[in-house]
């Protein structure tokens, strides 16, 4: 509603001129600025995955689409490896929350341990995803042999790239901290990294759900979406 209120203001009226507006605090912190930018970045990433997902759902109804789950011989009928990867990403998300908390409390050793855990679990997630790609290829589920395979490689690849981007951001936080910055600066940066990690965990859960659904589920989703 504040947007509509803003757009209704009449800036030319004398009463608007007499009192200088003070709606903006010039002492905005770096955190608020970075948070705004991150929200926009997440909106951009949301559009990317939304568009991929829409095209995927549409394609699930084509004659040559074979879901990767539902029959005993299909790779994700038993998706244990993917659950394991999900657990890694979940633990990375948890550990980054802890890291932020320890940064607020200025507890260096706990901070180092939790940040190491975040890096380790994230690395394990990416290694796990690469292993799934190798297993799929070894089992004859090549990227080009079926649209479901193509989308699996494409979506998980794009997701992994975003994770790598997050890791680079996290590393830059650590470098900045190591150069002698204070705990509060690290704390807000870790809060933003945490937001990014949770967001990518959410995206992964959605992808997991979609990519391991069986043909009947796709049919129902397509019916609801009108494809």
């Amino acid at each position, binding site marked *: 509603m504040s947007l509509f209120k803003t757009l209704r203001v009449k800036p030319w009226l004398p009463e608007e001129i007499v009192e200088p507006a003070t709606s903006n605090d010039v002492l905005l912190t770096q955190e608020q600025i970075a948070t705004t930018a991150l929200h926009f*970045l997440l909106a951009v990433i949301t559009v990317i995955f939304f568009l991929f997902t829409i095209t995927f759902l549409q394609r699930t109804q084509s004659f*040559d689409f074979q879901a990767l789950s539902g029959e005993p011989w299909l790779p994700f009928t038993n998706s244990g490896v993917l659950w394991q990867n999900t657990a890694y990403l979940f633990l990375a998300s948890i550990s980054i929350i802890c890291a932020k908390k320890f940064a607020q409390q200025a507890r260096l050793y706990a901070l180092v341990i939790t940040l190491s855990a975040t890096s380790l679990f994230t690395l394990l997630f990416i290694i796990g995803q690469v292993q799934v790609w190798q297993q799929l290829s070894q089992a004859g589920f090549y990227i080009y042999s079926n649209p479901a395979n193509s989308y699996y490689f494409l979506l998980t690849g794009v997701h992994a790239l975003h994770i790598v981007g997050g890791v680079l951001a996290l590393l830059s936080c650590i470098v900045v901290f190591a150069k002698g910055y204070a705990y509060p600066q690290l704390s807000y940066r870790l809060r933003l990294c945490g937001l990014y990690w949770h967001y990518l965990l959410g995206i992964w859960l959605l992808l997991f759900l979609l990519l391991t659904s069986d043909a009947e589920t796709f049919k129902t989703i397509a019916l609801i979406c009108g494809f």
Partner: protein
Amino acid sequence: MTKITNIAIADQVDESTHPHSFMSKYIWSQDHKVIAIQYSITAIAVGLVALVLSGMMRLQLGFPNEFSFIDPSTYLQFVTMHGMIMVIYLLTALLLGGFGNYLIPLMVGARDMVFPYLNMLSYWTYLLAVIVLLSSFFVSGGPTGAGWTLYPPQAILSGTPGEHAGILLMLASLAIFIVAFTMGGLNYVTTILQARTKGMTLMRMPLTLWGIFVATILGLLAFPALLVSAIMMIFDKVLGTSFFMPAILSLGETLDHSGGSPILFQHLFWFFGHPEVYIVALPAFGMVSDVIAIHARKNIFGYRMMVWAIVAIGGLSFVVWAHHMYVSGMNPYFGFFFATTTLIIAIPTALKVYNWLLTLWRGNIHLTVPMLFAIGFIFTFTHGGLTGLMLGNVVIDLPLSDTYFVVAHFHMVMGVSPVMVLFAAIYHWFPLLTGRFLNTGLGKFHFWGTFLGTYAIYLPMHYLGFLGVPRRYYAMGPTEFIPESAQTLNASITVSAILVGLMQLVFIINVIWSTFKGKKSGRNPWQATSLEWQTATFPPGHGNWGKQLPQVYRWAYDYSVPKVKDDFIPQNISPDNVQYVTVEPNNDGRAK
């Protein structure tokens, strides 16, 4: 928690951030003004390449088979590269990367963008995208000739020029450009939202900023569609997937693709492509509003409605994309829906045109060069917009879609119109960059040559379209339903196009000459109210403002305010400091 003040909004300038060496000042610069100039020079340079390409296309169309270096393949490559460069690498980059970068911090009263380093990265990534794109001229097979829309399956099939490296370099370049735009775009929106100086409320911002702000949001949300389609097409080409590729027989050979949807690519492309029209148009709308108000010495008519219209156009631009796809076929109800939304978007657009005219109405119009270009824009945009209304209807679009009528329409609305505003803006803001005016005589010559010349190009092109002359064709050949005189018209269009092209050399000479020898402008030569003209030093130096950031007390359109001494009140003048006309009483005691 410790408050850490961002450099962009720090009240006391941090002198340690001033660049000292040549490299940090002009090459790896993080100053938004230098980055803006880097963006602008690169965009104009690559735009000149596209201009030359269009000249060569016109040579072939006007005088078919006279030039041995233009064959059907090279013609299609010229078409493709001309279109893509002009839309993405020139207009988007110059309007947002160039003008956005230069004006946003100055107009909101900040010292710089909120992420200067990211801003610098944005430019260098953009430059990389340009280099990758232009490198396709030098690879085997040359650049892609798939048309600027890059429709599959033909874009990646044998027989299309640049089917190997050309198309891949184009797609890679687009992906890199989108990364660059995202870095820049995040900076623009965050700076406008978070780094405005005290008193600069959103509704006190000049319309230039509103146009750039909404266009950037459109770009951030629309470019991902192009990114997604580029990635999927690269997969189809390189990895053999079938996202867009149906089962297909190519040159007698059955390909391995199956089940992909070329129409899906069209939806993705135009989901980006139509907002792209407004990514270019909205900053132009904003800038022309400011130029008109300043040079007519009058407040902009209907400021709030202008803002609402920008926001409404931005929102509506996401629900009209399929009007580019009527000829691809669709459910009639969809056609009805998209025709309706297309006509609805004309309402806020027409409102803006009326408001520009009403701003001029009884204004103290100064026919300066920027004003001439701004008024020229109103003409060209109205003409281009009206033919857009025609083409928005399915029954009119179907017969005209593949003719020169469409070429004329989109060049008027998306080519000539934004370029007129760009020229208005360059002539208007040039003193801010250099402290000198561009030469007025050369400027007026440039304006009339460009304005009349573009009409000489595009008005006859509408007529050719009505005759049924098809677009994208290398040569018409003997076609029964097209009279021979159409070729004469084509030749006249080519002559006009070459003259208009040469006219731009006058502009470039003017810029180079005036940068060093132009008449000195002094501070705030147009007597404008907006903050960019009120800096501590002129032209503004690093950090933009002196020790204190400016404080804003009013909107940006206080022109010709009754009883005020000057005919403008800058935004940073407090009510106490406004000088009023002294009213001398008559002998009878009444005011004169």
